């Protein structure tokens, strides 16, 4: 019983964090067709901004939403400065990889200069611990497990039930045609980045509440998000969400039965095998579009 509870809980928790990160990557890819390698840095920056606001004396429940909104602005600015000027150029995928990597390095080193290398921690969403099915868990983690699906559902509703979300899905499919129905394509690109950055920032706040923060805290989650989108297919946002939870459960089960020692190697093996059978990812449909 406790084994099952542990795997279930671990999977849900890790899956939530992976899903929050991966969805942003997929959102930017489907709308703009570029890959944002500063996504991990967004996560770090969100956590540090939240920490700074709390440090200034704001209550966490006010500081966190402000940090998420600030991150939306950061995402927008990053898009406008290192992505938008390159749109329409040949080799944009490759060039954007290097500009977002460089922008990430800039932000990361900037954070190091401002906040220093010492580890920090931000308040948990809910303080305290409890026991479920014989497994001790923190209320913070339970809050993450509950909040994440709500946010992802809200994102899904936004994309599928609002006209602005519809516009985002349209831009993802055909840029010229989007211009011809009067969409503000540049603004929608900015919006995609802003949403992705906010989600990453929120993931950072989640993470900073149970683990020590450092300026490089985003690189490992970025890697996991990458694996998730490779697994789930990057051409939709539902694929990566499913894949995020699947990988979460896989890791939880692996580390329970085989130990942390072997988990990365096993994940690697499964990844390679999956790609040999289904190169577009397990949940990928043939089409490209947000859904």
């Amino acid at each position, binding site marked *: 019983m406790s084994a099952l509870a542990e795997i279930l809980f671990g999977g849900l928790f890790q899956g939530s964090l992976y899903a929050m990160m991966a969805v942003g990557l997929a959102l930017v890819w489907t709308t703009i067709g570029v890959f944002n390698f500063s996504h991990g840095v967004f996560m770090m920056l969100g956590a540090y901004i939240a920490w700074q606001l709390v440090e200034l004396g704001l209550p966490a429940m006010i500081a966190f939403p402000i940090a998420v909104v600030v991150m939306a602005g950061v995402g927008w600015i990053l898009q406008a400065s290192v992505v938008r000027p390159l749109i329409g150029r040949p080799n944009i995928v490759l060039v954007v990889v*290097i500009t977002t990597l460089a922008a990430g390095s800039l932000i990361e080193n900037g954070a190091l200069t401002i906040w220093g290398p010492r580890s920090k921690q931000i308040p948990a969403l809910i303080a305290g611990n409890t026991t479920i099915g014989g497994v001790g868990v923190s209320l913070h983690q339970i809050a993450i497990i509950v909040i994440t699906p709500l946010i992802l559902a809200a994102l899904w509703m936004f994309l599928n039930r609002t006209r602005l979300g519809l516009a985002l899905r349209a831009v993802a499919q055909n840029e010229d045609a989007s211009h011809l129905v009067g969409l503000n394509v540049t603004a929608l690109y900015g919006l995609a980045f802003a949403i992705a950055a906010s989600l990453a920032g929120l993931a950072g706040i989640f993470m900073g509440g149970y683990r020590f923060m450092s300026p490089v805290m985003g690189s490992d989650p970025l890697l996991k998000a990458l694996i998730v989108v490779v697994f789930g297919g990057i051409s939709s946002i539902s694929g990566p969400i499913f894949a995020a939870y699947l990988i979460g459960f896989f890791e939880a089960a692996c580390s329970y039965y085989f130990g942390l020692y072997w988990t990365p190697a096993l994940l690697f093996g499964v990844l390679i095998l999956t790609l040999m059978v289904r190169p577009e990812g397990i949940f990928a449909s043939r089409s490209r579009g947000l859904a």
Partner: protein
Amino acid sequence: MTDTTSPTTLGHAEAATPIAPGRTPWKLEAIGFVLGFTLLALLPLIFGDTYARHILIMAFIYAIVASNWDLSLGYGGVFNFGHLALFGIGVYAYSLLTKLAGFDPWTALFASGVIATLAAILVTIPILRLKGIYIILVTFGFAQLVMQVIISQSAITGGTQGLVRIPGLYLFDHNMVRDGKFAYFYIALALLVASTLFLRVFVRSRAGASIVALRDNEEYAISRGVSIVRQRMLTLAASAFFTGIAGAFYAAYQRNASIDVFGMSLATIILSMVLLGGTSTIYGAIIASFVLTIFAEWMADFGAWRPMITAVLIIGVMLAYPSGLVGMIKASWGAVAGRLKRPA
């Protein structure tokens, strides 16, 4: 008899071979190649101090890694973001072979190249049918997972602590440590010469041409009988050998191995070298490696600001000239040459 005929036939064959447009005649390139590397070999005469030689050794290593990356990225059009992992595999292969398995350092150096090549072939399998962004994702994932495996297998690899006291290279009874890095300087240069020679011969060969054909028009190249599976594998394998050797040399030179070689910052710098140099030139990546390494040294006074300034400059150059500095020079040269050729 033979003395007179052979030069004429050779000259005849040469005249019959049409020079491809935009291609430097091989004789001209050979002269430039010899001149350029002779100049590099003479550099220690100008820069007398050990530290300058250290910087140049690092620039040579980066140049090997970057120019080999240009083979897969620029010529092959395969966005292999696991290239630095091949370098890292070279680092760890050499370290483990010499330290744990007790291999001779030179044998281990060569074996590291072979192991990196095998790893490249392994990573080619899942990306054979993939395109563009998926190749980036898979190869990037490959790189990070190699790192994860090295971290998790800490009993052998030292994990995040890395490995220290790795055996260095030797040359007969020469004292490698107290010679002011002269021996390492010339070994590094020799490796760069060998790697560059290999890359240039490769890209000018028939195989090189078919790789470019595949990049530029996949359907057409396949219809003309170019095998995508074989060529992709060949490209990645070819780009891996000297990369692995460079990694091994790096480990031998530094006498330690750490997982930093898998990190984003090194990958960003090397990728900048490839892109700033302009892809599909080999020489561009090498020149950019020198420029960036020396530039980074020159900026050492800026301390913590250095990576930030570098990042801003990389972004600036990429925004202004997406095809890199060499691409810009080429474009302006092409415009001039085109004007000259056009009859008035």
